[in-house]
């Protein structure tokens, strides 16, 4: 089936091996839909940057195929429709921020008027006359995003854009990415920061040890909504709840009952349990955090 109308990035069995021992990316099948903000999530060294570098043609895969904006990675026609910021922004330290964007605009065949537009978008216009070498990390990242936006791309690839930023800078960058991702533009964002991905992204792909372990919407990944119940005696409470929702909706964990049901049912749950003479000590909506899901999927230890 031709997915080119709905899919902007598609990879099949994409693999990158360094030497005979290091398998950086292991047969990744990934698809990014047009118009979405896609989070590419994984711990440091999982293979995120290597995958993104393959998508923009900076490195060649050993096996597999990729189509980006309808073209092979690195082809001039494809690159014309992609903006990217891979790892740290690469600009000339002796040129000002504005002059850096102008020279890149020359190379990309973009009208130099666009330079002022993107500087305004990243709120860097007032400091664009300063040399890039004197910029703070946050300003460099902003200029990197501005450079990626120069071509007004259909697809924006951002590799850990909040790296090295202070909390305020991270919040500003997240807001900027959210704004950029509105409308028809697709954003492919890699990150190891779970909160960042949860806040910004429509869908996520989780990579671990070079393998894409899952790919779905954030909501699907977090699982169904539920209600957590702590009550005494717990066996009697479980009987009551089984009668209400069926055995499949109930599980026990850490001395609590996890119920697959909508939080709006909490009032009825409380009424039934109290009516049966059961003491309820805790009753609250329950949702798995992305962090829990991530650690479960990647096999990493929480808090390690």
């Amino acid at each position, binding site marked *: 089936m031709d997915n080119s109308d709905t899919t902007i990035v598609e990879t099949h069995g994409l693999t990158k091996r360094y030497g005979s021992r290091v398998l950086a990316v292991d047969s990744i099948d990934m698809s990014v839909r047009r118009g979405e903000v896609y989070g590419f999530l994984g711990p440091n060294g999982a293979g995120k940057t290597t995958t993104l570098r393959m998508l923009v*043609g*900076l490195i060649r895969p050993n096996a597999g195929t990729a189509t980006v904006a309808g073209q092979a990675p690195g082809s*001039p026609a494809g*690159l014309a429709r992609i903006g990217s910021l891979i790892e740290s922004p*690469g600009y000339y330290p*002796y040129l000002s921020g504005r*002059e850096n964007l102008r020279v*890149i605009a*020359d*190379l990309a065949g973009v009208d130099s008027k666009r330079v002022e537009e993107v500087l305004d978008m990243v709120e860097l216009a007032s400091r664009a006359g300063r040399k890039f070498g004197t910029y703070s990390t946050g300003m460099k990242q902003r200029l990197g995003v501005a450079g990626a936006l120069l071509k007004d791309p259909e697809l924006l690839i951002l590799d850990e854009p909040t790296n090295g930023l202070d909390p305020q800078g991270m919040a500003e960058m997240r807001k900027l990415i959210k704004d950029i991702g509105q409308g028809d533009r697709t954003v492919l964002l890699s990150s190891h920061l779970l909160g960042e991905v949860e806040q910004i992204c429509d869908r996520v792909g989780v990579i671990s040890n070079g393998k894409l372990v899952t790919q779905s919407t954030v909501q699907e990944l977090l699982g169904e909504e539920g209600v957590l119940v702590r009550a005494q005696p717990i066996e009697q409470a479980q009987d009551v709840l089984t009668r209400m929702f069926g055995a499949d909706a109930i599980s026990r964990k850490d001395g609590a009952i996890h119920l697959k049901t909508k939080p709006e049912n909490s009032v009825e749950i409380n009424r039934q349990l109290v009516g049966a003479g059961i003491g309820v000590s805790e009753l609250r909506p329950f949702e798995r955090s992305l962090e829990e899901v991530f650690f479960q999927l990647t096999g990493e230890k929480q808090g390690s």
Partner: protein
Amino acid sequence: MIATIKFEWRKLRFRPAFFVSAGLIAALVALVYFVSWYQALHPGTSERGLVNILTLYPAQFVNQVIGAGAIGGAIAIVLGAIYAGSEFSWGTLKTMFTQRPGRLTVWAGRVLVFSLWMAIMAGVLLVAGAAMSVVVALFQGAAISWPAAVDIAKGFGALWLIFVAEGAIGLGLGVVIRQSAAALGAGLIYLLAVEIIAVRFIDSINNGAYQWIGNLFVGQNAGALTQSFTSPAFGRSVAPAISAEHAVLVLAAYGVGLVIVAAGLLRLRDVT
């Protein structure tokens, strides 16, 4: 290609190395003229310091300044190494390769602009030499007469070729080593030590039977080309072992060959 050339030129003209190299080469020419002028007016007993004042007048300025080609060649290696190597150090190569043009187009634009830079360097060298020769002639009360335009053009061409060929060593090393400091160090060590030792060794084998190999080294040919610019005023009696035509061909082959090898590496290697 036009976009790539525009991009390269626009960033080169703001680069400190662009002005520093031009100023340095002009200052070197001025220094050579002042020292030679002093030596011509104060001849010692040693033959080594003898300078004919006629060699410092405008009529001989091309033959005089072309001697600075060797120093200019060393500077060209440094410039080539930093021009190619710094793109890796700054991470700007990935920025360049993720815009519209293909890798070979980007490289071709870079090489063309570097060649233009070397032409500017050759031009600065000649203009500085011409200016200094006028200063000397005016102070000495000598008549000002210039070399034929064709001789000036030949001198310019020779300097440009030497700079491009030796600059290509720097460019190639910058691409191979992927940083500028080690590349310029390796280039200078090659030119100032390795090649000299290698040529001496090759010349000494089997009574010079393999001298033809020594005659294929870049520094030997650059030296031979500069020595082909002379006149009786310089008093050189020994003809160079390598002809000017041979030198031009070898230098051109170095320039083209190294640029092609670097292009192949850039095309095939991953940008990490």
